[in-house]
């Protein structure tokens, strides 16, 4: 019974959203507003249950972790954002999380996304036993990366053999890459539609398995 009601409610709201394709209407607007409220409400409940209760309230009640009051007070400063005269206090917790977050991220990003990628970009073109299309691919990979980097290089005009031809090859490679993104994005959006149709036809109407 519980599940059946659930299915019907879910189907109702699915169709409510699809009704927007025909025309904007009150039911769509209701659904749109509900989703904002529920996701924020869910977020609060989960955060309380998983973070604040076990990591802050329980240790504080146990009485030996008074130092945790510091992050708690810092966190509470967020609320000052709603009191115009002391709204600037809300910058403190933001500054704390932003500064430390960026500090932690800096060397790690440098390593994971710059040095490692540079290393991988310097792969050998040919190894014995490689089929021709892989060798061609490796060449495209090296020249393509180089050319695309030239395209995004702003200190020199795009003229001459190196910068002129390079940036032209670069933009072609970038377009091939964007084509792939385009194709995959179309695929992704349709997959989401498929998911909903599977729900409507399968879970709800039992027309398909």
């Amino acid at each position, binding site marked *: 019974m519980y599940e059946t009601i659930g299915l019907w409610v879910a189907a109702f709201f699915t169709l409510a959203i699809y009704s927007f394709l025909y025309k904007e209407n009150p039911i769509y607007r209701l659904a749109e507003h509900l989703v904002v409220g529920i996701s924020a409400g869910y977020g609060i409940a989960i955060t309380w249950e998983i973070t604040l209760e076990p990591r802050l309230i329980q240790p504080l009640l146990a009485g030996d972790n008074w130092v945790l009051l510091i992050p708690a007070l810092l966190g509470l400063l967020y609320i000052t954002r709603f009191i115009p005269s002391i709204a600037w206090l809300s910058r403190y917790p933001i500054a704390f999380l932003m500064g430390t977050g960026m500090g932690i991220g800096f060397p790690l990003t440098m390593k994971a996304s710059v040095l490692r990628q540079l290393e991988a970009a310097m792969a050998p073109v040919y190894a014995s036993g490689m089929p021709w299309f892989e060798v061609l691919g490796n060449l495209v990979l090296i020249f393509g990366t180089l050319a695309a980097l030239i395209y995004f290089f702003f200190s020199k005009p795009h003229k001459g053999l190196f910068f002129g031809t390079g940036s032209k090859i670069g933009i072609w490679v970038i377009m091939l890459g964007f084509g792939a993104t385009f194709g995959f994005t179309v695929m992704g959006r349709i997959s989401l539609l*498929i998911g909903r149709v599977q729900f409507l036809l399968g879970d709800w109407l039992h027309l398909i398995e």
Partner: protein
Amino acid sequence: MNFWDKMLNIDRRWIFLAIGVVTIIPFLIGIGMPITTTTEVEDIFDFVNELGPENAIFVAFDFAPGTQAECMPMAVGVVRHAFHNDVPVFMTAYFPLSHGMMMAGFDYVTNPSIDGYYQVVEFAEWAHLREAGITTKAELVTEWENEGNVLPENAANWVFEGRDYALLGYAPLFHLVILGMTSSIANQYPEDANGNALIEMPMLNEHKSLREVDLALTTAGSSACMSWITYAREKIGTPIAFGVTAVMATDYYPYIQSGQIIGQMGGLRGAAEYEVLMVENDVTESTGKAFRGMDVQSADHLLIILLIIMGNIAYFAGGAHKRHQMKGRG
């Protein structure tokens, strides 16, 4: 306004209708066109397939409900595969809403209404066996069935909470949680999502930190998956696999080539490939939702390509491009 212009200015609700029809019909017919698999997905499958009860994996549900159609089949596929091979699975969530996704995904694998499901034995139910020192899967199953428990006919096997799976769930600032788990999982999650103490779990005692975990699969619809590379793989070398939405999949090919991830499932296609590999290797008996969706995907892709071609013909044949031109264009 000539014929072509009229065609281009057609009410777009007709196109919406076309997409709707083309999406529904193939479902009702059900063709089941075969799918070839790619190395990006095979690498993940083979990696998981090599694992056994002495190993452990993480399956991270790092997506929100909006992209569940793509990400859920991947996560569910890998969890099934791991359960089939008795590999313990830790499940986590990056966002508050993905916590719900984790619960839903687990429910999908263990729901008795789906054939080939895994019958859950909750942590408290087998406490007496645990206290008696029986912690290996094979012994547990024997002992559990000796006590008169019968595996339902449509179930594939038992799964013991704390032995075969742990639902860790969401924690805020999840990248820091990953970082913390590189030294201790129990410090980051004193309790699992069901309120069980992690230190009492046999699987945790065998795999106390990410160092002792053999693979982390992150299924994501945002760049959340990068945290696993930056904070786990680069710190202690945990092998990482990606299951990402198609929209993001093309962006992560550099990480496959650099060896930072062992493989990637991209979108519904990636999930379908995993399902095919599971059937081919007798892990499951039938393919799942992703594979069934691929017929529709084919039809919709054809329709969209057709629309692009028709639109361009109308645009150029109708001369719209001439009216819409700027001087400087080459």
